[in-house]
């Protein structure tokens, strides 16, 4: 609970430092849904390289160079956790849960290089991801997180509106997902707070506070942008990762 309060303070600090639109962007008020909530529906996708590495990284074969999405670029691992992160990275070809097509976890699913669609209801925000046809149902029905601990790949997500920002609080994660392809990881004590703030009809700021006292010395923040897909024929298609993998591995291929 102490950590959760700390996270709340940090989210507030992060939002006051970063949540305003860039100087060249006028302030923006999103349209409202029939239920009176900010309307953030549509198909969105990141345009960054966080799927490969959340932090600053150079290019290598198949991996574009990229500026990180971690505020300050430092992920504050405990010393023994940093050792494990480096082991994960060294053995990523076999240890990365993505190599087995498992559900990605949060916030990794946001950074996968596939579009996702937000569908709002009065008491729930649904996020449909093309990758592995993942669904996140973010409940806003007044129910708190259920008792636990529950080991879920995608966690349990509860949302609320803070002005025009959708704030999503997620716990009940298993320890089996990573944050990216270079072994950044967490334990089952992971607590993620995401803030989705529309800053134009076509852009949302995406801020995340990650805390996990078993792995990190303090909470840390992610700050990046989601882009609306406006291609004329855009729609979610399919990436059935495990089906392709099984088909490829079958003897009668």
């Amino acid at each position: 609970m102490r950590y959760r309060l700390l996270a709340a303070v940090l989210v507030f600090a992060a939002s006051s430092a970063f949540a305003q639109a860039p100087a060249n962007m006028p302030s923006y008020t999103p349209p409202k849904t029939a239920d009176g909530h900010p309307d953030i529906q549509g198909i969105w996708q990141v345009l960054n390289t966080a799927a490969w590495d959340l932090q600053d990284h150079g290019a290598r074969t198949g991996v574009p160079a990229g500026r990180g999405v971690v505020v300050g670029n430092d992920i504050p691992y405990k010393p023994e956790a940093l050792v494990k992160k480096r082991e994960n990275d060294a053995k990523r070809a076999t240890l990365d849960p993505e190599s087995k097509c498992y559900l990605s976890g949060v916030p990794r699913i946001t950074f996968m290089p596939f579009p996702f669609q937000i569908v709002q209801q009065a008491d729930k925000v649904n996020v449909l991801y093309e990758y592995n046809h993942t669904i996140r149902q973010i409940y806003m029905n007044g129910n708190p997180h259920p008792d636990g601990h529950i080991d879920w790949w995608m966690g349990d997500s509860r949302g609320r509106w803070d002005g025009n920002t959708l704030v999503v609080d997620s716990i009940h994660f298993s320890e089996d997902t990573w944050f990216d392809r270079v072994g950044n990881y967490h334990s089952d004590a992971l607590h993620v707070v995401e803030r989705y703030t529309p800053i134009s009809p076509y852009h949302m700021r995406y801020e995340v506070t990650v805390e996990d006292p078993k792995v990190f010395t303090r909470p840390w923040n992610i700050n990046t942008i989601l882009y609306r897909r406006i291609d004329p024929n855009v729609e979610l298609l399919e990436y059935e990762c495990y089906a392709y993998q099984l088909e490829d591995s079958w003897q009668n291929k």
Partner: protein
Amino acid sequence: MAKQVSRRMAIGVALLLAAPRLASAQAIFDPKDWNGTLGAGAKSWIAERAKLPPFTAPRTADGQPNLQGRWGGTWSGDDIEEIPKPVDITTPAWESYVSTPANGKIPYQPWSLAERNAHREGLGREAWSKDPTKRLYYDPQAFCVKSVPRYSQRGYELVQTKDSVIMMLNWGHIYRVIPLDNRQPPSGDLRTWMGSARGHFEGDTLVIETTNLNGKMWLDSAGNFIGRNAKVTERLRLVSPNDLDYQATIDDPETFTQSWTLTARQRRQGAGGGQGGGGNAVRDPYAAESWEHACHEGNGEHEHEIQNLGFKWYFPPVPPKK
């Protein structure tokens, strides 16, 4: 609430492999208790539907018929044709879900009937096989994929927006987004498990046309199938506050002698997950929530055990050249 809930909630493959001995999460029907009647398929539902008073669906704020809500699963997973007597403890006697043609039989061509029979014979199930050691394909659904119309066997939540209909299954986190804006499907080069769905309303009826299927899924766990060039036209209509009439018409001249239709009743659910009725919804505030069904993750090594048993990966058969 349980303090520890295993994430291995989805053990579809394990259950199917072990059936009929291990059936902890499946309904158990002891053939010895059979009273000689068939479970309600198309025929019973159509008779009951005919007796319902006229009903007009309420409208959404956008003026569409309001079909939103949680709808329960319908047809049995085993054999959408008639099961005249119990097969085993997970497969009770059941009416056909095929409403057209009237004999309840899928109108296969000779080649495709032989193919279906080979699928069934090769399942390794004693009840259906002369030689249970002969293995051909495993039911593709065991690998946590779905297709149209088989998805409708499971419960789903239906959500409408002004320009689309969204269906979200709890099972395997499968979803469909069905545009209502008259857009064309992609070319035949883009094929998917769930196909490309395009919807529109005709009066009170939601009509969904699905094409671009990859053909790698069966209609049921008894080997019935449609081809990859099939067009599936679904018609969903609210016929009472809590009953959705579900029809799916298959047009696939490469595989069948005529177009045919399956008809089923979908009942409104109060509870989440398609795991049962709404009786607990009042007591449990979480009953109408969809909690994670991590299907592939739960299958784990069973997927490779199936491989080791000699089952092949199902690819859609190629119709003979005319």
